[in-house]
């Protein structure tokens, strides 16, 4: 049974069911009709016997029968016997060789290949004595049935075969979409072309299935594209520092380099190496986050202190562009989180604000809490982000202005997004071109950690 296709299986089961139903129906009809018909016959026989009885007359010690009553009527043979079993009146049909009298009963006898329905009854006639009346007729019910059965036996297999064939084609037609789906999925598999879709029309269950598959392919394609892009972007970002290092090394190794130039080359190399190292760490963290295996070490963190100290740390860097940092930090906002990651979050947001801030501009850092919710914001009055770019700033390696490269090479906001999400919080961004950008994040004091 295992190696048959669904279509074959369905057809077989269905045909078997039809056969069983028909057979059961026939048997049922047969039995019921048999009973009813026989009941019918016996009733007629009984009536005939009774009629005969009522038509008797006794005259001069002899039994006389009314002329109205015939001993052969409607196919029923009437025979009347006296108490010595001698025939008084009537006749028995040809082919019937007689049989013992069974008074007050209706029964069937099979003789000489024919079936007889018999009704025997004993009557008492006043002034005469006992008589026995027999009503008998041929029972051709069975022979009719025999004909029906033989017809059925010949036509049933043909009917069944017809059923099976038609059923098979109907099933095949219904399952056609499945074949389509399989073909499409196969071609996607082999060709590794994830952009193909099944695109089945219709609204039944199979179309719905095909639809679901198409949606799944959509998601897969998007994920693969994102991963490919990520890998190529990452490699690209790493290539630049590597190229610088190689160039510096080659120069330093050339015979024309002086000791001072050695020193300067080494410093540049160190700088670039640090950059790469930072990039790789963030990539690692993000890839861990992607795979869902990033682990935070959760502790009680005083977010207020963290904000204060982080902004203090970056005052110098801001001052390089003449940017002033203004803090409005509520005291002792405590939460459960990963201290290093939260620090990273703030550093990235503030560094971003500095990079995209205007000369002699301002950065506003706020932190507050109410009940279990913590609200923080980093706002700058810098160059802002255009509406088209706004949804993309969270993308990895996305840099609105590649010439303004900061240390994180476009990963800063991806990290921010992930860190917020890992702490069960959310972050919004508002920006107006030429006016500035504001990042607002929400966290909870108790661990709402994913």
């Amino acid at each position, binding site marked *: 049974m295992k190696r048959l296709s669904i279509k074959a299986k369905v057809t077989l089961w269905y045909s078997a069911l039809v056969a069983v139903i028909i057979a059961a129906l026939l048997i049922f009809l047969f039995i019921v009709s048999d009973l009813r018909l026989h009941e019918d016959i016996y009733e007629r026989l009984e009536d005939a016997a009774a009629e005969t009885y009522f038509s008797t007359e006794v005259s001069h010690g002899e039994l006389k029968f009314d002329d109205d009553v015939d001993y052969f009527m409607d196919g029923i043979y009437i025979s009347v016997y006296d108490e010595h079993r001698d025939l008084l009146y009537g006749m028995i049909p040809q082919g019937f060789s007689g049989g013992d009298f069974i008074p007050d009963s209706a029964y069937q006898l099979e003789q000489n290949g024919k079936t007889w329905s018999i009704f025997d009854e004993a009557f008492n006639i006043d002034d005469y004595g006992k008589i026995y009346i027999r009503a008998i007729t041929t029972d051709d019910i069975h022979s009719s049935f025999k004909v029906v059965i033989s017809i059925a036996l010949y036509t049933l297999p043909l009917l069944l075969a017809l059923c099976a064939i038609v059923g098979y084609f109907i099933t095949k037609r219904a399952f056609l979409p499945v074949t389509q789906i399989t073909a499409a999925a196969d071609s996607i598999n082999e060709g590794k072309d994830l952009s193909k879709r099944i695109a089945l029309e219709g609204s039944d269950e199979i179309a719905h299935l095909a639809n679901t598959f198409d949606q799944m392919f959509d998601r897969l394609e998007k994920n693969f594209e994102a991963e490919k892009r990520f890998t190529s972007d990452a490699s690209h970002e790493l290539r630049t520092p590597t190229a610088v290092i190689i160039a510096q090394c080659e120069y330093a190794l050339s015979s024309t380099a002086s000791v001072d130039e050695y020193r300067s080359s080494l410093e540049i190399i160190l700088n670039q190496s*640090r950059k790469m190292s930072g990039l790789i760490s963030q990539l690692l963290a993000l890839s861990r986050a992607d795979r869902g295996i990033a682990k935070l*070490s959760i502790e009680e*963190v005083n977010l207020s202190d963290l904000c204060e100290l982080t902004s203090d740390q970056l005052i110098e860097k801001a001052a390089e562009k003449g940017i002033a940092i203004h803090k409005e930090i509520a005291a002792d906002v405590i939460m459960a989180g990963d201290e*290093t990651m939260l620090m990273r979050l703030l550093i990235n947001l503030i560094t971003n604000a500095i990079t995209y801030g205007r000369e002699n501009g301002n950065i506003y850092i706020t932190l507050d809490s109410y009940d279990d919710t913590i609200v923080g914001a980093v706002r700058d009055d810098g160059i802002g982000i255009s509406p088209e770019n706004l949804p993309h700033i969270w993308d990895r390696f996305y840099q609105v202005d590649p010439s303004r490269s900061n240390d994180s090479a476009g990963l800063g906001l991806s990290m921010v997004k992930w860190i917020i999400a890992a702490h069960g919080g959310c972050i919004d961004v508002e920006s107006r071109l030429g006016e500035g950008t504001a990042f607002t994040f929400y966290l909870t004091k108790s661990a709402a950690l994913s």
Partner: protein
Amino acid sequence: MRILIVEDEPNLNSLLAKRLKQEHYAVDACLNGRDAWEYIINTEYDAIVLDIMIPFKNGLEILSDMRRMNNNTPVLLLTAMDSVDDRVRGLDHGADDYLVKPFSFDELTARIRAMLRRKKDAVADTLTVADLTIDRNSRTVTRGGTPISLSSKEYSILEYLMRNAGIVLSRDKIGSNVWSYDYEGGSNVVDVYIRYLRKKVDDNFPVKLIHTIRGTGYVIKEEK
């Protein structure tokens, strides 16, 4: 404190890593001798837990190569081979300790602690600079008798500074000792942590212990 685990059975490897991280070590882990060698020659570890039977380069080879290169990082050999000959051979190759599988995890951590105590720059259970004291068993800090509450990373950085009291440590070195390759803080993170430490350890006291040496790094010492 940074530890390297070299163990080829993946489940045991990740279990050891997890438990040691719980003990507040920064942990790197690898599954074979080739990777292990790369890690060892590129990173300064405070201790190494090394399985002998590992693919590509076995533990004893790694050990002898290390000692030949004058790398004296304390090494605890971990293995299923427990005959006396095996132990003797392991120790003679330069191991500081030898633990046979199966072992109790508590015993492993105790032996690591003991091994670290015996290290050349031997570190005691408590470290003191002026009136600042840390108890390395309980990971608690007090100054002038007043307890100071530090987060896990803050403590690790302070401990590293105090283990090398009087020695200037660069940001890179501090970062490498407190974080494994898994979680590098990144630029500015060490600086912010130093600020934290200053705030908690120095601010309320007349004598400042944590100093910045511009261009080089940080040092903890009592300025005389």
